[in-house]
C-alpha cells in the first residue's frame, strides 16, 4: 500500500504547480454551496486542495477519505469565479478525479453505466426508448404545471424525487437528422442538443431549431450523437470520456459549419473548456482538432445575441418570468446577459430578477445521485428565491438545472413552470 500511495502521490504532483497558487485565504467559503450546508472545511475548495497537496506530498495515508471529499463537489465553479489568486479549481478537481478515481477504481455501477452504456449511444438510446414506454407503470404525474412525476410505489432509486419523465418520443426520433443551407443570416451551425434535451426535453431542441430556422440559419444535425462526456469525466473515467469526445468530434467534422451550438450550459462548457483541457495527452493533430471544435462551440443564446445580433426590445408586460444562471454558463463561460436579453425580448414577458440568481441549484449531475439530501438542501434555497420573486415561469439555460428546479418546485407544490430561455424566446417569434 505504501508503494501504491507513492505512485498516486507522483501522479498528483503533476497538479502541484496549479495547487500551490492557492494561498489558503479561505474566500471560497463565501460562495461554495456545499460548504454552506455542511460547514466542513474538507468540503470547500481550500480544504480539498490542502488534502490533495497532502496526498501528493505523502503526508496523508487515507486516499479513500480524500477521494470522498473530492467527490463532494458540484463542480459549479463558484469558488474559481470568486478566487482572489485565480486558482483554476475546476481544472485541478477534474484532473485529480481522473487520477484518484482511476487509482481507486470506479464503482461497479458507474463502470456498467459509463463503459457499458454511455459510450455506446445506440444501445443506450434503445434501452431508454423501452424504458419510456414502461415508466408509467411505476410512476404517476405529480404536477400539471411542471409536468413532473413521482414514484407510484415505494421505489428506492427514485426515493422522494419528483422527476421529469422520459419523453414519449426523443428528439432524435422527432428530428433524426438535418443538413440545411444558410439563408439570409449567412451562418450555418451544427446543433448538439445534449442527452437531457434529447431524452427528456425534446421540445427545447425543437424550439431551438425553430428559432434557427426563423433567423435563416443553416443547420447540421447529424444522427448518432453521443454524450459530451462530462458524467464520465467527473467520475474520473477518462477512458470513456476520450471515447465520447472522439466519437462526437468525428461525427461533427463530417460537414462544414461556423459554430457548434448547444442549448445545454453543461455541454457547452464541457466542449468549449474541458475538451481542450483534457486533451494534453493526445497527439498534436488530434489536440488541434479538439481545440478547433472547442473554439467554435457556443451557447445558443450567446450566438443569437452576440453573433446574430437579434433585435431585443426592452421590457414587455404579462407573464412574470425570472431567470436562473446555470453555473456552467455564467461562471464557466461568462454568459449571463444574453439569456436575459432574449427573455426580455418577448413582449408578453415581464422579466423579474430573483435574489441570488447565480447561486447553484445543487444539481451537479451525478452529485444529485450520490448526495441527494444535500443536493435537495441546496436546491431548496433556489426554490425559495424563485418563489419569493413572484415569477410564474422560471427560465434557465441548462436542462440539468431544469430537472433539479422542477424537482424542488414540484415537491413543494409550487405552481411555477420551468422552461429553457430558448422556449420563451421561440414563443415570441
Amino acid at each position, binding site marked *: 500500500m505504501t508503494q501504491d500511495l507513492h505512485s498516486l502521490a507522483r501522479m498528483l504532483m503533476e497538479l502541484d504547480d496549479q495547487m500551490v497558487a492557492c*494561498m489558503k485565504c479561505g474566500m471560497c467559503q463565501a460562495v461554495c454551496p456545499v460548504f454552506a450546508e455542511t460547514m*466542513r472545511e474538507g468540503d470547500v475548495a481550500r*480544504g480539498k486542495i490542502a*488534502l490533495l497537496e497532502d496526498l501528493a506530498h505523502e503526508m496523508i495515508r487515507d486516499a479513500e477519505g480524500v477521494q*470522498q*471529499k473530492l467527490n463532494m463537489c458540484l463542480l459549479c465553479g463558484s469558488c474559481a469565479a470568486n478566487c482572489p*489568486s485565480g486558482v483554476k479549481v475546476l481544472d485541478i478537481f477534474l484532473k485529480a478525479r481522473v487520477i484518484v478515481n482511476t487509482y481507486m477504481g470506479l464503482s461497479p455501477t458507474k463502470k456498467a453505466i459509463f463503459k457499458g452504456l454511455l459510450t455506446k449511444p445506440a444501445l443506450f438510446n434503445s434501452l431508454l426508448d423501452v424504458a419510456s414506454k414502461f415508466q408509467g407503470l411505476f410512476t404517476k404525474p405529480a404536477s400539471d404545471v411542471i409536468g413532473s412525476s413521482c414514484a407510484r410505489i415505494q421505489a428506492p432509486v427514485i426515493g422522494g424525487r419528483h422527476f421529469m419523465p422520459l419523453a414519449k418520443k426523443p428528439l432524435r426520433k422527432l428530428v433524426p437528422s438535418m443538413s440545411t443551407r444558410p439563408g439570409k443570416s449567412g451562418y450555418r451551425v451544427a446543433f448538439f442538443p445534449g442527452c437531457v434535451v434529447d431524452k427528456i426535453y425534446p421540445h427545447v431542441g425543437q424550439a431551438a431549431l425553430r428559432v434557427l430556422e426563423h433567423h435563416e440559419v443553416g443547420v447540421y444535425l447529424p444522427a448518432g450523437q453521443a454524450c459530451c462526456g462530462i458524467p464520465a469525466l467527473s467520475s474520473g473515467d477518462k477512458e470513456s470520456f476520450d471515447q465520447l469526445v472522439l466519437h462526437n468530434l468525428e461525427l461533427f467534422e463530417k460537414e462544414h459549419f461556423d459554430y457548434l451550438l448547444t442549448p445545454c450550459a453543461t455541454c457547452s462548457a464541457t466542449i468549449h473548456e474541458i475538451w481542450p483541457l483534457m486533451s494534453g495527452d493526445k497527439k498534436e493533430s488530434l489536440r488541434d482538432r479538439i481545440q478547433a471544435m472547442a473554439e467554435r462551440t457556443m451557447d445558443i443564446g450567446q450566438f443569437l445575441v452576440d453573433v446574430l445580433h437579434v433585435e431585443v426590445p426592452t421590457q414587455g408586460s404579462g407573464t412574470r418570468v425570472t431567470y436562473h444562471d446555470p453555473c456552467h454558463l455564467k461562471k464557466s463561460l461568462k454568459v449571463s446577459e444574453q439569456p436575459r436579453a432574449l427573455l426580455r425580448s418577448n413582449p408578453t414577458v415581464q422579466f423579474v430578477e430573483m435574489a441570488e440568481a447565480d447561486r447553484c441549484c445543487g444539481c451537479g449531475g451525478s452529485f444529485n445521485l450520490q448526495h441527494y439530501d444535500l443536493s435537495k438542501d441546496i436546491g431548496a434555497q433556489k426554490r425559495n428565491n424563485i418563489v419569493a420573486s413572484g415569477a410564474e415561469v422560471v427560465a434557465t439555460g441548462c436542462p440539468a438545472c431544469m430537472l433539479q428546479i422542477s424537482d424542488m418546485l414540484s415537491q413543494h407544490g409550487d405552481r411555477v413552470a420551468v422552461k429553457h430561455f430558448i422556449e420563451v424566446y421561440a414563443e415570441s417569434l
Partner: protein
Amino acid sequence: MISTSLISAFQTLLGKENVLDSEADRHSYAYDAAVLEPVVPELVLRPTTSEQLGKTVALCFENDLPMTVRGAGTNLSGGTIPTKEKGVVILTNGLNKILEINEQDLYAVVEPGVVTAKFAAEVAKRGLFYPPDPGSQAVSTLGGNVSENAGGLRGLKYGVTKDYVMGINFWNAQGEYVKSGGRTVKCVTGLNISQLMVGSEGTLGVFDQIILKLVPPPVASKAMLAEFDDIDKASQTVAAIIAAKIVPCTLELLDNATINYVEAFTKAGLPTDAAAILLIEVDGGHEALVEDDAAKVLDICKKEGARRVVLAKDAAEKNKLWEARRNALPALARARPTTVLEDATVPRSQIPAMIRAINKIAEKYRLQIGTFGHAGDGNLHPTILTDRRDKEEFHRVELAVDEIFDVALSLGGTLSGEHGIGLAKAKWLEKETTRATIIYSRTIKKAVDPKYLLNPGKVIGG
C-alpha cells in the same frame, strides 16, 4: 493519541456528526491563511450551543487537551494553527446566531461564529452601521475579528474592532462562565476584562457571546483618485488633509510596483509611471457637508502636487475608481505561487520612509514586493511574491521580513497593525516591547490558564 472513550464522550456531548476524527477531516484543519507549516489536530469539535461549548472546554481541560478556537480560518499569523501535541480545534461555525440587534440602544449581541459581512448586512437592513471591514469580511467571523482586533479600510475615521466591543461573555480555561462589560454606553463595573480579551488571540478564554456597538450610517459619500509622481507628495497630501480637519473614511495607497501588477492584470489603463495612487473617500451625515469636504480634499491634492485627480460623479464612477484598489491583492497574488502578506504599520508621517525602505529591501534580497494599504492610519501591506517551494528564495523572504519589521520599529511603528501576532511574529514581540512585557503577559496567562491549554504558544510564546 486521544482515547476512544474520550472521543465517545465528545460524541455524546456534541453528536457524532460534530466530532471529526477521520484523517481527511483532521488534515483540513491543519492550516490557516498564514504561510506556515501545517499542524494536524488530534480532533476537531463543533459545538452548536453555548452549553455544549462550555462543556467542551471543561472536558478538554479535564483531559489536558490544548484548544485552538477556529472561525473561518482566515488568520494571517497562524493564530488558528493547532498545537503540536494533542491539539484540538474547536469550531465556532455552529455558533452563528445573531441573538439581538437593538435599534434603540444601538448594540447587537452575537455568537462568535457569525460571519462579519452577514452581520454588517443585517445591521444595515435596520438602518444601522457596523464599520469594521477586514479584507476577509465575506467569510471571517466576529469571534475571530475580536480575537485578532481586526482592522480594515475604515480604520482612520471609524476605528477598528476594539472600538466596537462593549462586552464579552466567555468560558475560562476550566469551562466556567465569565461575564464582562455590558449593554450600556457607560459601564465601569469590575475590571475591564472585555478589552483584555480583544486581541488576545484565543489565549485567555473561549468567547460565547459578544456585545457590539452600532452607529448610524453615513448618508452620503464621495470618492476620488489622485496620482502622484513622488511618494513624498502623496504622503504630504495625507498629512495636509488631516491637518485641514477632514477625516476621510478611506485613504488607500498603492505604490508603483502594485500599480504595475494591477495594470498587468486588469489592463484598465492605470498610470504605470506614477509613484503612488491615493484612493480617497469622504463620507458624512449630510450631502452638502460631504460635497464641501470632497472639494476641499480635491484642492489639497492639487496644491500638494498630485499630477491628476479624478472625482467620481456617481456610484458607477466610484465603483470604477475602487477597481484598482480592489484588484491590488488579486493582481499581486496571481503574479507568483506564494503570497506573503505583511502588515507592518508606522505613524502615517513615516509612510514615504517605510516604502523607500521596503523597496531597498526588495532590491537587496532580489525579491518582488508590492506595497499597498491604509495610508490614513499608516497600516501598510508589503506583499512579497515568491514560491515557497524554492527554499533558497524563501530563505531570502524570511530575511526580508525580519528587516521590514526592524525598519517599522525603528520608525516608531509596530509589528502588526491588524493581522495579529500568532505564531508568525511571536519571536519579534520582545523587540517592540520589553522582556518584562512578555513576562507580565505570561504571568496573566498562567494565572487564568494554569495548564496552558488555551491556544498555547500564540502571541506571547511560552
